[in-house]
C-alpha cells in the first residue's frame, strides 16, 4: 500500500507539471484557488474567454481531452494519466467546467454513435474548446423521469422537424452544438419511442432563454424548438433507440473519476481556524469541534474513496462502485456546511455579497447548494442507483412501463 507513482506515471507527471508551469494563466491562479461553489467568476476577466484560451493552448500542445483518441483531438492517454493531469492542473482545472458536458457526455456519445466523417469534423474543435456543446435531455415534464420527455421529432423527407421545450440546459447560451433527445413515437411505451440527434444551436427555430435560478444567477437555460430542422444524418443511433444512446451519455457523466467534488470543508476549517466567537476562538469550542470532526471524516472519506478508484485505474482495473457515493455525500454536506458557517456569524450572517464576512463566500455557497442536490441526478435518484446497481435491490414498480406514452396520465390533480 503506497501513494507512489510508477516510474511511467512519475515521468508523465513531471512532463505535465513542467508544461503547466510554463503555460498556465498564472494571473488567475489565486482567484481560481479561492473560488468555491456559487462563486467561480473572475473579477476582471470574462471566465469563458479565459477558459477557451486555456483549452485551445492545451489542445495545440496535445493536452486536451487526454483519454480521447488522437484522431479526434485527444492524446490517447490511459485513464490514470488523465487523473494525473487533473491533479497537476489543480486550480486551472476550474476553467474546464464549461466544457464538462461537452467533453464528458456529448463527445463520448458522438464517438459511440456518430458517422465517422462527423466524428472527424466535430470532435477536434470540441476538444480544443473552439466549439462548446450542451446536452438537451431534461424537460419540464421529464426531470428524474427523463424518459417522460415530450419534445417531438417528426420525419419530413430527409429531415426531422423538432417541436418542444427543454429545460436546465447548462451553458446553452454559449453553446455551438447540442445533443438532443426527442420523442419520435408516442404510441409505444415511453422508453421505446425516443431518438437522439445532434444539432447546430444556431439552427432557425432554436430559442435560448436563461433561467433565473433561486440563487439569482443564471447558469442554466430553457431551450425552445419551433419547427427546427435536423438532417437525418445527424441522428445518433437507430430511430427508437434513443434511450439506450442516452444511457451511454449518462454513464459517462458518472464515470468522471478523480474529479474533486466540493464539500465546503476546507473552506469551513480554514474559516473556523481563525474565527473568534463571543467567548473565545471557534476552534476551541466543543460544539464547533464536534461539527468539524464529523465533516472532516466525510471529506477525507470521499478523498480516499477516490484514491481507491484511482489505484484501480493505475493497475489497469475497473474501479468498483464506491465512487457513486461522491455526489450524494458532497451535495448535502456543502449545504449543511454553508448553513453552519452562517450560524457562526450570528445575525450578521444574513448579509451577503461584498459587504459580508469573507465577501459573502458562505452566503453564495448556501444559495447555490440546493442545485447540487438536484443537478445530474437528485439525491433520491442517486440512492436508487446505489440500492439497485450496487446492492442489487429490486427496481421500482413502474406503473407506466408497458403503457403507450400517449396514454400515460399527465396531471396529478384536477
Amino acid at each position, binding site marked *: 500500500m503506497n501513494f507512489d507513482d510508477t516510474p511511467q506515471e512519475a515521468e508523465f507527471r513531471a512532463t505535465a507539471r513542467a508544461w503547466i508551469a510554463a503555460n498556465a494563466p498564472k494571473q488567475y491562479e489565486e482567484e481560481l484557488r479561492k473560488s468555491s461553489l456559487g462563486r467561480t467568476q473572475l473579477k476582471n476577466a470574462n471566465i469563458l474567454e479565459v477558459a477557451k484560451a486555456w483549452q485551445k493552448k492545451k489542445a495545440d500542445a496535445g493536452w486536451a481531452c487526454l483519454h480521447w483518441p488522437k484522431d479526434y483531438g485527444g492524446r490517447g492517454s490511459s485513464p490514470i494519466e488523465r487523473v494525473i493531469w487533473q491533479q497537476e492542473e489543480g486550480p486551472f482545472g476550474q476553467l474546464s467546467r464549461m466544457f464538462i458536458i461537452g467533453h464528458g457526455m456529448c463527445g463520448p456519445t458522438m464517438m459511440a454513435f456518430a458517422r465517422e466523417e462527423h466524428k472527424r469534423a466535430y470532435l477536434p474543435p470540441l476538444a480544443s474548446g473552439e466549439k462548446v456543446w450542451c446536452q438537451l435531455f431534461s424537460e419540464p415534464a421529464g426531470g428524474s423521469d427523463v424518459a417522460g420527455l415530450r419534445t417531438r421529432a417528426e420525419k419530413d423527407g430527409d429531415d426531422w422537424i423538432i417541436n418542444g421545450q427543454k429545460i436546465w440546459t447548462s451553458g446553452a447560451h454559449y453553446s455551438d452544438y447540442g445533443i438532443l433527445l426527442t420523442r419520435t413515437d408516442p404510441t409505444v411505451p415511453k422508453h421505446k419511442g425516443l431518438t437522439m440527434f445532434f444539432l447546430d444551436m444556431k439552427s432557425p427555430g432554436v430559442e435560448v432563454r436563461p433561467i433565473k435560478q433561486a440563487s439569482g444567477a443564471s447558469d442554466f437555460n430553457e431551450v425552445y424548438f419551433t419547427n427546427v430542422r435536423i438532417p437525418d444524418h445527424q441522428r445518433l443511433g437507430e430511430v427508437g433507440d434513443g434511450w439506450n444512446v442516452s444511457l451511454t451519455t449518462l454513464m459517462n457523466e458518472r464515470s468522471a473519476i478523480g474529479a474533486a467534488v466540493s464539500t465546503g470543508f476546507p473552506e469551513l476549517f480554514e474559516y473556523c481556524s481563525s474565527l473568534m466567537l463571543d467567548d473565545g476562538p471557534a476552534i476551541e469550542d466543543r460544539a464547533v469541534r464536534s461539527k468539524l470532526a464529523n465533516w*472532516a471524516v466525510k471529506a*477525507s472519506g470521499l478523498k480516499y474513496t477516490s484514491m481507491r478508484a484511482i489505484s484501480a485505474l493505475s*493497475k489497469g482495473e475497473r474501479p468498483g462502485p*464506491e465512487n457513486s457515493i461522491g455526489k450524494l455525500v458532497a451535495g448535502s454536506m456543502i449545504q449543511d456546511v454553508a448553513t453552519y458557517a452562517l450560524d457562526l456569524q450570528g445575525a450578521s450572517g444574513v448579509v451577503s455579497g461584498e459587504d459580508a464576512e469573507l465577501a459573502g463566500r458562505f452566503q453564495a455557497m448556501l444559495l447555490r447548494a440546493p442545485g447540487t442536490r438536484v443537478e445530474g441526478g437528485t439525491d433520491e435518484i442517486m440512492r436508487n442507483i*446505489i440500492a439497485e446497481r450496487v*446492492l*442489487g*435491490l429490486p427496481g421500482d414498480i413502474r406503473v407506466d412501463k408497458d403503457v403507450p406514452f400517449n396514454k400515460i396520465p399527465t396531471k396529478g390533480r384536477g
Partner: protein
Amino acid sequence: MNFDFSDDQKQLRDQARKFLTEKCPPKAVRAVLDGKAPYDKELWKGLAEMGFLGVAIPEDFGGAGAGHLELCVIAEEMGRANAPVPFSSTVYLAAEALLIAGSDAQKKKWLPAIASGEAIGTLALFEGKGNPSPKNVKLSAANGVLNGVKKPVADGAIADFAVVAARTGSSGRDGDISLFIVDLKGGGVEVKGLTNLDPTRGQAEITFKDCKAEPLGAAGEGWSILTQVLDRAAVLCAFEQVGGSDRALEMGRDYALDRIAFGRQIGSFQAVKHMLADMYVSATLARSNSYYGAWALSTNAAELPEAAAAARISATQAFQHCAKNNIQVHGGMGFTWEFDCHMYYRRANAMALGLGSLTYWEDQLIDRMRKKNAA
C-alpha cells in the same frame, strides 16, 4: 499509486473469511452470548494455529513476522464474524504495547505466548467514567507496587496479564503516568466480572492491592506510549468495525430481498432502499478512511495520529449506523433475541466506547489537524 491491499493480503483475507465462516458461525457467537463460556476457546486455539494471533509479531518472538496490513485484513474478518474472543485486547492493545515499549525479556516472555494462544492480555486504563486522560488515572504505583481499581477492563476476567496505567507523579503533566505489566494470576489482584452491553466480549473490574508490578517502558513515559497504543488500536478496531458494518448491511439487504409485505419485496420500497443506500455510504466512507489509517500505521507515518482518529470516528459511526438500521429493516423480527441483528448492535455500541467515546476522538482529530496545519 497503489492505495489498496496487495494480492497476498487479499488472499489472507479470503483465508481468514473461510476459516471464520467455518469455525465462527453465529451459533458460536451465540454460545458465548448465552453465557455457556466466557469466550470461544476452540476458536482461540484455531486462530493461534492459523498464525492469526501473531501475524504482526516478529518471528524472533514467535510470530509470523508479517505486518500491520496483514493484521488489518484479519481484523476486518474478525469484525465481520463478530468473533467472541479476546482478540482486540490481546492483539491490538497488549501486544502492541509490548512491541512499542517492552524490554527484550518482556517481549520474550509474553509475545510468543500471545502468538501461540497461551496468554490472553489486556490494557487496564479506565477507572470508571471518563475518557483517556492522564488526570483520570488515579491508581498509584510506588516502588513497583500498585494500589487502585480499574474498570472497565476489556476481557479482564479471562486475561493472564494486563498492561496497567498508573500514577507515578503529581505534577499535573503527562509525565505523571507510567505503565506496568501485571501477571493477573499472581497475588494482589482481585477480578470481578461485569455485565455489559456485549457479553461476547467480557468486561471486568480489577482491584490491585499491594500488587507487585514490573515497569513497561521508562518511568513517566506511560502516557506517550499509551497514545501510540491507542492510535494503533483505533486503526485496527476500525477494520473490525468496517467488517461488522459490511455484514450488518448484507444482513439488511438479504432480508429486504427475501421479505414480502404488501405483495412485494420490501427492498422495492424506496423508504427501505434509501435506508440501505445510506448504510452503504457510511460503510464506504469508513472503509476508505480505514485504508488511510492502515497506510499510516504500516508505514509509521507522521500522519498516523490524524489518520487513526479519522478512521476511528468514521468506522464507529458506520458500524453504529449499519447495526441499528439492520434491525429497522428487519422490523419486529430484528428485535428478537433469536435473530442475530442484536449481536451486531451490541458489538457496534460496545466498540464505540472501548477506546474512548466518539466525542473524545472528535476532539483528538481536531487537535491533530491543527497541529498538522501549524507544522
